[in-house]
């Protein structure tokens, strides 16, 4: 065993990278749930984003276009969910689960012919000045742009929910859709927009896997990241600022277990491999005090 081989700076740096896909997907789902909708299809939207992003990026040669397409792909899939649950009033849990299965199948189909192809390079940014700061620089300021995009989205969501009127409306819709409706707000429109935002974010998260972290396309490559994102929303008690903590915790344990293995720690590999999930479950149990939005998962119908 040689723990000194683990460089804490690099560990923290790769933690940010490992957490980014979950963070992106989770912030989208957070907005959806704050609007009172439970979309369990995060995994499906992520993988749809992963494949559309990969196809677009390899076709055009531009990772940025890839991310754009991924957001579009995720949003398109979430639109299916939105139409089914908001206008046809289908059960949100069942529709969300179906969306995951549908997304996995559809992405496998779309990805035929893209297996084993290289993605265009997406170089890291070395932010001038900031990246030269000792300790903090290499940890925080030498990543690919999407890491910062993810954090900016979280910041924007926080500002939106806390300080804007539209954010207040969204929260009102999520807390009590009948009251919001009585006040004249468009419950379905707000929810549909939230669902689209959630889909786009999940798509970005998926594309981060296929374009940056791996970078390659393979069937089922999200490997449960969408479910972790859902858990992290609960862990964060539906608060954006806590979401970052949750995502980094999960990313940290993931990276740490690989580092411990490489350093030869005498802990069974199986236990190390399941540790990120164990940590997530443990934290969920401890933190279960959070209160969910009042109308979460309930079907809204104006006539009732």
């Amino acid at each position, binding site marked *: 065993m040689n723990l000194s*081989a*683990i*460089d804490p700076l*690099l*560990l923290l740096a*790769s933690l940010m990278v*490992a957490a980014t896909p979950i963070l992106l997907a989770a912030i989208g789902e957070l907005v959806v749930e704050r609007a009172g909708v439970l979309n369990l299809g995060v995994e499906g939207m992520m993988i749809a984003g992963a494949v559309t992003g990969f196809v677009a990026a390899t076709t055009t040669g531009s990772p940025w276009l890839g991310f754009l397409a991924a957001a579009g792909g995720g949003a398109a899939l979430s639109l299916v969910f939105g139409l089914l649950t908001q206008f046809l009033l289908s059960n949100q849990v069942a529709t969300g689960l179906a969306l995951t299965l549908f997304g996995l199948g559809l992405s496998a189909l779309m990805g035929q*012919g893209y*297996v*084993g192809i*290289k*993605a265009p*390079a997406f170089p890291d940014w070395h932010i001038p000045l900031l990246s030269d700061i000792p300790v903090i620089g290499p940890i925080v300021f030498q990543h690919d742009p999407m890491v910062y995009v993810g954090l900016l989205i979280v910041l924007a969501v926080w500002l939106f929910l806390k300080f804007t009127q539209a954010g207040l409306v969204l929260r009102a819709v999520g807390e009590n859709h009948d009251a919001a409706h009585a006040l004249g707000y468009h419950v379905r429109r707000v929810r549909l927009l939230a669902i689209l935002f959630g889909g786009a974010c999940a798509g970005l998260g998926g594309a981060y*896997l296929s374009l940056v*972290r*791996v*970078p*390659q396309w*393979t*069937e089922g*490559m999200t*490997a449960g990241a969408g479910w972790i994102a859902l858990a992290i929303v609960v862990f964060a008690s539906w608060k954006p600022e806590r979401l970052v903590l949750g995502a980094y915790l999960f990313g940290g344990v*993931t*990276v740490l277990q*690989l*580092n411990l*293995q*490489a*350093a*030869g720690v*005498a802990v*069974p*590999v*199986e236990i190390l*491999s399941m540790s990120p999930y164990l940590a997530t479950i443990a934290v969920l149990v401890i933190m279960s005090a959070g209160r969910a939005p009042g109308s979460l998962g309930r079907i809204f119908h104006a006539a009732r």
Partner: protein
Amino acid sequence: MIFTRRAVAAILASTLATGAAAQDDDPTRVGFIYVGPVGDGGWTYEHDQGRLAVEAEFGDQVETVFVENVPEGADAQRAIEQMALQGADLIFTTSFGFMDPTVAAAEKFPDVKFEHATGYKTADNLSIYSARFYEGRAVQGHIAGQITESNIVGYIASFPIPEVIRGINAAYLHAQEVNPDIEFKIIWAYTWFDPASEADAATTLIEQGADVILQHTDSTAPQAAAEAAGNVYTFGQASDMSEYAPMPRVSSIIDNWAPYYIERTRAVIDGTWETSDRWDGIDTGMVGIGEITDAIPAEVKASAEDLRDRIAAGEYHPFTGPINMQDGSVWLEEGEIADDGTLLGMDFYVEGLTGTIPE
């Protein structure tokens, strides 16, 4: 996901035609069970190249079928039996984890010939075949030991089975031979093919100072991770992975199954098929060493090629004593050569490797 060549036509034809006529014209059906996708660029890709070679060799005499992405375990048995029910005459199951499902299927379908890659269980209608990948690993270790500057080699292992352990030992022995300070860091990925976790493992190893990455997993994700990191050397696994040459990929182990698949298919067509246990290496070409690129010093390249040629000529065996086991006890005396039985069941590290093999 079952892909068949001319399968629909064949099924239609055999249902419509009278029994006797169909019997006479029936092409030999050869099936393949793959653990990954044919586009993995590694292990499964090369098996599929072998399948295509069989088609090219026999033309209308054969019909090939394959199923890709078959999980190891119970699902595999379903896929194998389905293939046998569809009338396959010869079925190649191309991953270690298909061993017990193949044995079970072979019992149920005594008239179908089975061939299982990298396993150790045979039956009257079940042969086994593998390649001496450790010969290639020896060449990799020989190169890795000389080109590393950090003296740390990262090794992405798949499952703790003899084949993988043999590879680690062979690579380590030959790296240590040229560089006594070498250290191997090993991550067990518990997968043959999962680009995401392979990429994570490669990145972790690089962050811990490894500047050479050896992989026993099938995707090109570690190559991409090494390319992104820069100044990290890798080797193609199972396939040439030449799209990453000359850097980071500086050489490769190439599996060439085509001659074996053609030979065994011919045996079935001729009715001369018998249970066999084939384990070929560099000498017959089943293990190929991919082009060593100029990214490494010329003298390293020359000595690696010399090692390759000596192994091919049978002048040198990668497991030649003196070799001690990890605990320091003697495994092979001076000049003693490992027997195949020990190699096939290898479950121990050689002296110098750190860490323990997971149970």
